[in-house]
């Protein structure tokens, strides 16, 4: 795509750092896995170091850890109801994994694990299957009430129920596609405008550079927003599973 043979899509290549093989299945430690490990390590470090002091009046780092807890706890309470409390560890982990993966991807020369559809699809599938199982476990066959909204005239139901069922099964696709497309498109745009800066050189390169600075700020905002949206949608799907037909 650009001069010098570097494509803006090269940044998404999976590189095997430690080739491993388990009976014909490739389980190498890749750059994607490395950055996921770094994301988990950073999140764990932030939370354990933050809560180490256990002061009654929290300092800065402890405040950060406590605010993160409250943020997710409030989100679950407001969107999934009181029945959602047992699922707090999962949703907390989900939010901070996506958040740190997205944010660490903004570091130059790093890799964004969530810019691959298989990563986001894996997470979305876990949420979808988990929520469906929870729905059937808590409500039995009454879970089907989710597809039959109350107060709908009978003739309309024949059209509405298939639409509701289809849109239910589209959930993991839209959930994963949203995060994946945001990350991939954002990083591709950054690379393309970076290429413009270099190719326009000293004379006119400042214009794409200014845009690139603004775009980087926007991408950091989008990184945080997409983590929030993924998690809050998971909370809403959990609410649907716990109280179908509301």
């Amino acid at each position, binding site marked *: 795509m650009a001069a010098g043979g570097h494509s803006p899509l090269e940044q998404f290549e999976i590189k095997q750092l430690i080739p491993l093989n388990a009976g014909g299945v490739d389980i190498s430690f890749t750059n994607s896995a490395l950055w996921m490990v770094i994301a988990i390590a950073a999140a764990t470090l932030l939370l354990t170091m933050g809560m180490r002091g256990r002061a009654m009046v929290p300092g800065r780092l402890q405040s950060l850890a406590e605010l993160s807890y409250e943020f997710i706890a409030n989100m679950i309470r407001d969107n999934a109801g009181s029945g959602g409390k047992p699922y707090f560890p999962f949703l907390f982990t989900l939010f901070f994994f996506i958040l740190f993966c997205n944010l660490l991807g903004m570091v130059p020369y790093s890799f964004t694990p969530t810019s691959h559809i298989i990563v986001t699809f894996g997470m979305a599938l876990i949420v979808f299957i988990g929520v469906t199982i929870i729905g059937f476990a808590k409500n039995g066959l009454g879970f089907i009430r989710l597809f039959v909204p109350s107060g709908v005239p009978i003739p309309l139901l024949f059209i509405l129920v298939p639409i509701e069922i289809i849109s239910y099964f589209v959930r993991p696709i*839209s959930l994963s*596609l*949203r995060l994946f*497309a*945001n990350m991939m*498109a954002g990083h591709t745009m950054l690379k393309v405008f970076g290429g413009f800066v270099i190719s326009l050189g000293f004379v006119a390169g400042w214009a794409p550079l200014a845009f690139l600075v603004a775009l980087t700020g926007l991408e950091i905002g989008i990184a945080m*927003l*997409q983590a*929030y*949206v993924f998690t*809050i949608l998971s909370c809403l799907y959990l609410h649907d599973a716990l109280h179908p037909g509301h």
Partner: protein
Amino acid sequence: MEAEAAKLIGAGLATIALAGVGVGIGNIFGNFVAGALRNPGAANRVFGNVLLGFALTEAVALFALVIAFLILFAF
């Protein structure tokens, strides 16, 4: 028409979806500003929903982008 030319035209046509997305996002924030001017105290409370609505609408734009990429590179 050769496949390559058809792909380029198809990818270009896929961006028509962005018109609807532009209207949608403008709608969300326009309503938020109008509501916030009427009731400033409630503005902070509802901003979370504004961001959620924005992200969901933005997702439709990105679905169109994915379709454009699929047409260009996968077929």
